[in-house]
């Protein structure tokens, strides 16, 4: 296990290195400058300012300097938020994004499992139909549409939840629901399909024949075996939540990092683009590593350490 982990962590670092390198050079191909007042500056004025930021150096030199800084934890200074170190900008804004993302993931997957399981257990009943309709809606309604609907009805009309802004758990409810809908629907769909399959397999028949209770069969045999494919989609779901959060954070005025990503690319804020790319790819790598480890735990047949003798 330790050896496996070490190997995976090495790959993680390698992946990050490749991502940093590619992003750095691609980003330098973007037209324009990171200067917000670019439209009003002459070429010579821009050149003078570039000199101060070291942007006049050849790109490969800038790249090496960036790597040297990044290794020491210095990710540069933001252009949009002038004089703010990128590490501070991101660390002060990542909390809300993480909280909403995790809440949406947990809510979505847990409720999804329950909905899917109930659907499969009462196959072709009204429960099943409802569960299917819910998953289809959840998948087909984009999070930003759901966000606006939730905001209007539960926020403005009924006044149950704050319409926007940030300030405590109550403020996270609507964004969590808006973001959690897709993972909920996806996992419900997966669990249902898989469980219908499992429920008709021989070992379930055997378990029933042996006289196990219905709940025992469902929880100990059917559900556990249905969860394996669910783990596969956790990675993609995490990506889905990360991209969804960019819009949902805007709608609910959440001081997160979602919007910074889009804005930094649009404004050529090089250090912020790099910082965010590293964070997002790191999070994704960790989720993937985590799901691989989970596989082994849920399904003993999958041996992460190689051949089981």
């Amino acid at each position, binding site marked *: 296990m330790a050896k496996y982990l070490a190997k995976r962590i090495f790959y993680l670092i390698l992946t990050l290195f490749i991502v940093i390198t590619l992003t750095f050079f691609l980003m330098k191909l973007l037209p324009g400058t990171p200067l917000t007042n670019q439209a009003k500056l002459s070429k010579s004025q821009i050149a003078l300012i570039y000199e101060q930021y070291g942007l006049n150096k050849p790109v490969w030199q800038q790249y090496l300097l960036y790597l040297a800084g990044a290794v020491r934890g210095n990710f540069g200074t933001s252009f949009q*938020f002038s004089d703010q170190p990128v590490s501070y900008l991101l660390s002060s804004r990542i909390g809300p994004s993480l909280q909403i993302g995790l809440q949406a993931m947990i809510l979505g997957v847990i409720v999804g499992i329950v909905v899917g399981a109930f659907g499969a257990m009462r196959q072709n009943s009204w429960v099943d139909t409802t569960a299917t309709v819910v998953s289809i809606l959840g998948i087909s309604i984009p999070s930003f549409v759901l966000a606006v609907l939730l905001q209007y009805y539960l926020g403005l009309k009924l006044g149950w939840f704050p319409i926007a802004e940030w300030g405590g758990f109550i403020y996270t409810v609507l964004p969590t629901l808006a973001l959690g809908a897709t993972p909920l629907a996806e996992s419900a769909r997966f669990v249902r399909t898989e469980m219908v399959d499992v429920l008709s397999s021989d070992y379930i028949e055997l378990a029933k024949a042996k006289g196990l209770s219905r709940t025992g069969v469902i929880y100990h045999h059917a559900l556990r075996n249905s969860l394996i494919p669910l783990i596969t989609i956790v990675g993609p779901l995490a990506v889905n939540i990360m991209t969804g959060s960019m819009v949902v954070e805007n709608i609910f005025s959440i001081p997160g990092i979602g919007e910074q990503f889009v804005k930094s690319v649009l404004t050529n804020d090089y250090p912020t683009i790099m910082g965010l790319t590293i964070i997002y790819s790191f999070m994704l790598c960790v989720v993937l590593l985590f799901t691989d480890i989970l596989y082994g735990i849920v399904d003993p047949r999958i041996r992460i350490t190689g051949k089981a003798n």
Partner: protein
Amino acid sequence: MKINSAVKLGTVATFAAVLLAACGSSSNSSSEASKQTLNWMENSALPSMDSSTATDVVSGETMNNTGEGLLRIGKNSSIHPGVAKSYTKSKDGKTYTFNLRKSNWSNGDKVTAKDFVYAWQRTVDPKTASQYAYMYAQVKNANAIMNKKKPVSSLGIKAEGNYKVVVTLTQATSYFPSLVASPMFFPQNKSVVQKYGKKYATNAQDNVYNGPFKLTYWTGTSDNWTLSKNTKYWDAKNVKLKKINFKTMKDPQTSLSQYQSGKLDATYLSGQQPKNYKNDKQYVERKSASTFYIELNEKKDSMMKNKKARQALSLAINRNQFVNKVLADGSTAAKGLVSTGLAENKGTDFNTAAAVPSATSQDLAKAQKLWKQALKETGRSSYSLTLMADDTPAGKNSAEFIQSQWAKLDGLKVTNSNLPFKTRLSRSQNGQFDAVISAWGADFPDPISFLSLFTSGNSYNNGKWASKAYDKYVAAATGKDANNNTARWNDMVNAQKTILNDQGVIPVYQQGKAQLVKSDVKGLIYFPTGANWDFSRAYIAK
């Protein structure tokens, strides 16, 4: 590992319970808000509070309310005393002497002439890498300092004792008083700047304020920030608001909902919203000092160089229909290159004095005629061009509308190309376009801010339109007539008339902002350039 059903059910149950509990206790924070609190929204967060390096409107607006320069901008861009209680101008218009009042920083330090000298030197210092240092161009030696040819100490500003500032300019600059009233000419407390070093002005605490308010909450990256009344301000007795809560609302619908639920006292409208609220009592339109105009690339071919072709393209556009039906966001039809409401002379607006109606109105029959003549003169039977514009909603709307208008000209085929701002900008600057919708916002309330763009060889003159007469008028306004208000005004009027008569650019619209403001909010001061807002006289009437 077994997935324990009890644990799982427990998690679901807890979650449901928390959700339900959350439903019951909707927040009640608005009730505690005291009377004189203004809740204001911005479209983007506050990125900087350093008057030497800030570049955006939100920073400018916040600094204008937490700081004060030698003078202060008021309603309709009028100039009022600030830290300087009076000033005198030398006969040649090149030397200004400001007499400072005794006033204090929020930490109790005295605001002295040295604070101005320090701040101005710091801004033009190349090490500061200020993107607005060019605003100092008229101050003696500023350009040489920015280009590292002279030391910062040679800048044309001297402190004579603690309460007198003497500024030397390279040439008479009639709008200089409005420049020194803008945030990039505000004073800075040297000991505070040096004490906090890199952290200076990066959050609410590591800074001092000499304006009507002080920043009391801002982490440097937060979406909310708070201004509180500055009791040390010299005119504090006339400041009525106790607190201003700024909130960043990136989504216009969210902002409107917050306004409707009473969480905001004002909100900017966009998209379809202005149309829906146009007849509302709380609806206000604010004119910005920004003009959107079309530049034609005269380097491209004989057609774009043909005056009749340019005039036809201008005459084909129904600007009123565009601003009222398509944009409908508070924008108005452009009456000239210079924005309306920017400057006036003896009660006459610049655009009234320098109007050329034929260059900013529609006349389709005349357009057709001129277009045919232009095709004939250049030996063509048809012509096709690409119209470049921003990929913003307004940019797309503009390009589509103008394309539809130009389609009415026989033998003209127009293709649209909507590009991200920076791409559009670099293509404009490199001459890689046929026609482009450009925009310019004035930095200070004077027509020269627009007119200086189109002198031949100017780097902002993307279409490379050139006129000797125009160059002469602009040169006179900034040179020999700089200290003669009437002659200078006439020079500028003639310059605009020249460019419009030759259709050197095609002015389309002047940007406006539609806003809803609660009717109990009084005393707001708005001006179209730079910082836009002054809250020092605002109050809540209840």
